[in-house]
């Protein structure tokens, strides 16, 4: 266990040092929120600054969970690092454990930075418990993307992992309405994505304090699907 925790600690530090993480998961959503978030409008029964805060926090959390790990796992498999780890007392599950914990830790700053901008610069107001519940819900939901990262990392090469991530994540972010609110057909499609429903969980908590069963069902279904893919990719990679 000690060995696993040591690896986890170092893995977290590396992510924080990594420029790609800072840009995609923290700087980009924070900047977009600062630039766009101040419009006055009402979307999904909440004011735009709250709506966009949740969108950007969701985007940042998912990006943080997905981008680092997928590419790192692919790279470390290719470079022989994962093989090398098999020559130590680290248990077989230690590597994945470290990666999952790292994702769960590194989604936190993305959420906190965007929420911080919302609370202190854009004057988003809601009861304290709603802030806390919203942050926790986002954090839990981002676990679905932790599994997707593992699935992609074990399925693709370092060269193809990045395009694979973009191909899956950007349409989901766009159709999920994280970047700007959608209407009509696009929204009808978007409703099937975990990005849309994760975002909606947040706006529902702000507006009515009640979340819909549909949102939970969609998020859980994707979570199960991604976890299944992760297990399949991991197994087929081990057999090679």
């Amino acid at each position, binding site marked *: 266990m000690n060995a696993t925790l040591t690896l986890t600690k*170092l893995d977290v530090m590396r992510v924080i*040092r990594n420029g790609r993480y800072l840009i995609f998961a923290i700087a980009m959503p924070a900047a977009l929120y600062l630039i766009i978030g101040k419009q006055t409008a009402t979307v999904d029964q909440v004011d735009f600054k709250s709506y966009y805060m949740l969108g950007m926090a969701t985007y940042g959390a998912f990006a943080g969970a997905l981008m680092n790990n997928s590419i790192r796992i692919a790279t470390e498999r*290719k470079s022989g690092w994962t*093989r090398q780890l098999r020559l130590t*007392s680290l248990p077989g599950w230690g590597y994945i454990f470290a990666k999952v914990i790292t994702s769960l830790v590194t989604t936190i700053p993305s959420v906190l930075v965007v929420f911080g901008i919302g609370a202190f610069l854009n004057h988003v107001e809601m009861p304290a418990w709603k802030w806390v519940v919203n942050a926790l819900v986002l954090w839990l939901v981002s676990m679905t993307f932790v599994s997707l990262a593992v699935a992609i990392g074990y399925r693709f090469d370092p060269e193809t992992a990045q395009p694979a991530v973009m191909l899956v994540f950007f349409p989901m972010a766009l159709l999920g309405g994280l970047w700007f609110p959608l209407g009509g057909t696009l929204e009808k499609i978007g409703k099937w994505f975990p990005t849309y429903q994760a975002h909606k969980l947040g706006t529902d908590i702000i507006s009515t304090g009640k979340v819909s069963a549909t949102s939970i069902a969609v998020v859980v279904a994707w979570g199960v699907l991604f976890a299944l893919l992760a297990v399949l990719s991991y197994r087929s990679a081990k057999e090679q």
Partner: protein
Amino acid sequence: MPRDTRSPNGAVVEFENVSKTFHSPKGPVHAVNGLTMALQPGQTIAFLGPNGAGKSTSLNMLLGLSRPDSGRVALFGGTAAEAIKHGMVGAMLQSGGLMSDVTVKEQVELWGKLHPRPIPVADALKRANIADLADRRVDKLSGGQQQRVQFAMAIIGDSPLIVLDEPTTGMDVENRQAFWATMRERAYEGKTVLFATHYLEEADQFAERVIVINKGRLLADGSSAEIKASAGAKRLSFRLPGVQDAVLHRLPNLVSVERQADIVRLQTSDSDATLYALLDAGYRPAEIEIQALGLEQAFIAITAEDNNHADGTTTATLEAAR
């Protein structure tokens, strides 16, 4: 200290009739083919073979990274996984990756913590000659510097068996010397060191025992001197105008004959016997020179001879010649 897990006969590493076949589009490749060997504690052993001889495949099976199709591999009398779990093995892989976004010190420190009885990080860095690189990012280092990081990782666990696959590739002369100086200290501490290398002079200088494999089979096993002897280790040359080929080919202990006008070059496993036979036959050669073959030439000679034989008869010939 962990329990004494050495096998009854005391071997640190045992291969018993081990085979491994890969399936390529061109058909099956017998990477390792009935390999049997045992390594005793405290030995420094060089593992030699041409490219594709099965060295890396053997080392991978030794370390439990791949499974043999048949036969038995044992480390300290048990499985590789058990030995590794107890910190009995420190290894440096040819294809061993390193982390990105970490410093040399962090990387080596992590490795120490992944072993049960590590030596201090500072010691490992010093012995690997990378104390000055401690705060540099691992992914910004040159190939030779990364090799030294790998080396620090192989020794930080203070393991009784150290396995090195092509350890000095990419190192400059100075670092190669520092590397072998450290390796010698480890050997003096009673550690077993097994290394695969392309540099035959390293095997000649540092190994007490040399194991040569070719086409996945054991080809020669002994001290460097024994290997040289088994290869027809002397080169005998002289000037002898007008001698007939038939006379030369009748000489005893002959391995090969080469002629260039009046100059004759023979390879022989017993230069004295060969020369006396020539003199006894009434010939008086001039400009006689006897030269020992280096391990490199011996290695080339025995693997070339093996490649000329389609089947396993060469091994028997070599053993008879010893």
